[in-house]
């Protein structure tokens, strides 16, 4: 039977010839939690009487949501996680090392693997051809305890991207367009499978952005094929031996096929308070912004920072607009430093905060005031998302964010490129 990428991975890992709609039990190749989900995960694990994890080599904890901790309660949550990893022999990625999804891509995820994380944006690793999905603390605790869990094999929506991006238009614009098109529940219980010549030409960083935002359409996973680009990434990171190709079979069955000609797209913005409330940037022109945030697991990789730096070089932020930049990981931070991007951001009047999730989910390092507007390269704009239910969050590409920081209002990056 011809298979989708989701059917292939779940069949391979479960050892059952599975098709969409089937339930399977499968061993999980990597399971992780953060300081956000970790304390409850540990509590649930202990509640069942399991003292350790099934396989410490396939388990990781990340301290990235409160990095570094702004409050004693969160410091005590960190203590819970540190004590648990010490007892169970599980690796810990400390405060400052980076956002879990970036580190999963940098150091752990491989094509064809089944990955479960206690964070909704765990779908990000699908950019490397993994079946990666988010679950809650109890599910993840039981994956840690048992080394496996149950999955319903999802139907897949095939997203075929054709054409070349025009100047000032990026992967983020394409995925926002898709979410606006199919809706915030357009892929619920399903997988999004990205394919076509545009995806084949994308870097791994761009594919991670595509996969990352899949969950904002409700998807269980967002999967890109594994190909020569994937192989090059893995080889550069010392994981060349983990490479395996992945593509859907011709004749695989999809619940829906969506064609996107990216050459016809323009810069897009998601307006408050849902990610599918999408409009072209030009329609939002003149919207004043008090804060621009370039960060998160969506768009804070080196090439995102490079794009933003090229726009901000020799420019100044608008005097009424704060600019906050948070590289996705320590490695990204150091590379951006060496390449001079951080200097460009700081000379433009921006500030650099340590790698982490704080501003994006409203924890710390960028909470908005009443009535304030933020344009962000992140993934969610729900009411209250950046820490204040009386504020407004718009989402865009790093280029649109950078151009808007200079103008002080939402601005089409093509005006400054």
């Amino acid at each position: 039977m011809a298979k989708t990428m989701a059917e292939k991975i779940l069949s391979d890992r479960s050892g059952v010839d599975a098709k969409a709609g089937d339930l399977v039990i499968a061993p999980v190749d990597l399971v992780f939690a953060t300081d956000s989900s970790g304390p409850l995960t540990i509590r649930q694990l202990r509640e069942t009487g399991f003292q350790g994890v099934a396989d410490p080599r396939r388990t990781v904890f990340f301290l990235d949501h409160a990095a570094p901790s702004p409050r004693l309660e969160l410091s005590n949550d960190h203590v819970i996680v540190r004590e648990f990893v010490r007892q169970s022999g599980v690796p810990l990625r400390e405060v400052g090392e980076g956002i879990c999804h970036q580190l999963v891509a940098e150091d752990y995820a491989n094509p064809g693997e089944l990955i479960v994380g206690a964070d909704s944006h765990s779908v990000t690793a699908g950019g490397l051809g993994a079946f990666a999905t988010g679950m809650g603390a109890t599910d993840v605790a039981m994956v840690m305890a048992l080394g496996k869990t149950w999955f319903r094999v999802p139907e897949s929506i095939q997203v075929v991207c054709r054409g070349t991006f025009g100047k000032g238009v990026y992967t983020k614009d394409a995925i926002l367009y898709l979410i606006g098109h199919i809706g915030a529940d357009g892929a619920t219980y399903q997988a999004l499978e990205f394919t076509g010549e545009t995806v084949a030409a994308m870097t791994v960083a761009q594919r991670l952005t595509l996969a990352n935002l899949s969950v904002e359409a409700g998807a269980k996973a967002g999967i890109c094929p594994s190909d020569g680009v994937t192989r090059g990434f893995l080889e550069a990171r010392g994981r060349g031996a983990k490479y395996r190709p992945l593509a859907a079979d011709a004749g695989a069955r999809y619940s829906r096929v969506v064609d996107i000609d990216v050459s016809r797209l323009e810069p897009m913005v998601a307006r408050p308070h849902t990610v599918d409330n999408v409009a072209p940037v030009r329609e939002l022109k003149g919207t004043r912004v008090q804060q621009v945030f370039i960060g998160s697991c969506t768009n804070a990789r080196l090439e995102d920072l490079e794009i933003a730096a090229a726009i901000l070089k020799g420019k100044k932020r608008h005097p009424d607009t704060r600019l906050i930049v948070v590289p996705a990981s320590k490695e990204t931070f150091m590379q951006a430093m060496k390449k001079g991007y951080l200097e460009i951001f700081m000379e433009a009047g921006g500030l650099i905060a340590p790698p982490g999730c704080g501003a994006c989910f409203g924890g710390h390092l960028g909470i908005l005031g009443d009535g304030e507007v933020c344009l962000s390269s992140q993934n969610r704009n729900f009411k209250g998302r950046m820490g204040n239910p009386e504020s407004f969050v718009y989402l865009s590409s790093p280029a649109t964010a950078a151009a808007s920081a200079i103008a002080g209002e939402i601005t089409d990056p093509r005006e400054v490129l």
Partner: protein
Amino acid sequence: MIKGRAIKYGDNISTDLIIAGRYFHLRSNFPELKKHALEDADPTFVTRVRSGDFVVGGQNFGLGSSREHAPLVLKLNGVGGILAKSVARIFYRNAINLGLPVLICDTDRINEGDELEVDLAGGTVTDLTNGARLTFGKIPDVMLRILNEGGLIPYVKKYRDIALPS
């Protein structure tokens, strides 16, 4: 058969609305955390919710974060179940794992304050106030077994394993 009163909301009740990120520091302090349930959607929720009440939503209930604290704070406030037209995947799995039933049905026919009667095995919801009788989508067997044990923790305590219904 479970009975309770409907507390009704609209579409897109996100996990941020159910428990906001700004209360992140209270995540290991359940008695304090639960005081902020649904605060950004309805600041009166915690003062008026009674044990056994159903939270009734529209489309895409529970979208967003994987934070299990979202269904947890509803449960800690005594909520007996969630009814919605559609439910985001992670929230659905999380609620069942906590032993909190989630029923997908046409909630347009339920009004705020209505008395509801849910027959989990029979797959029906009866609105005792207006007489409407709704059927809800079948809960997958694997989840029904978890729900019947009171959640995934009691399930795994009992079976020490996870298996599919044969």
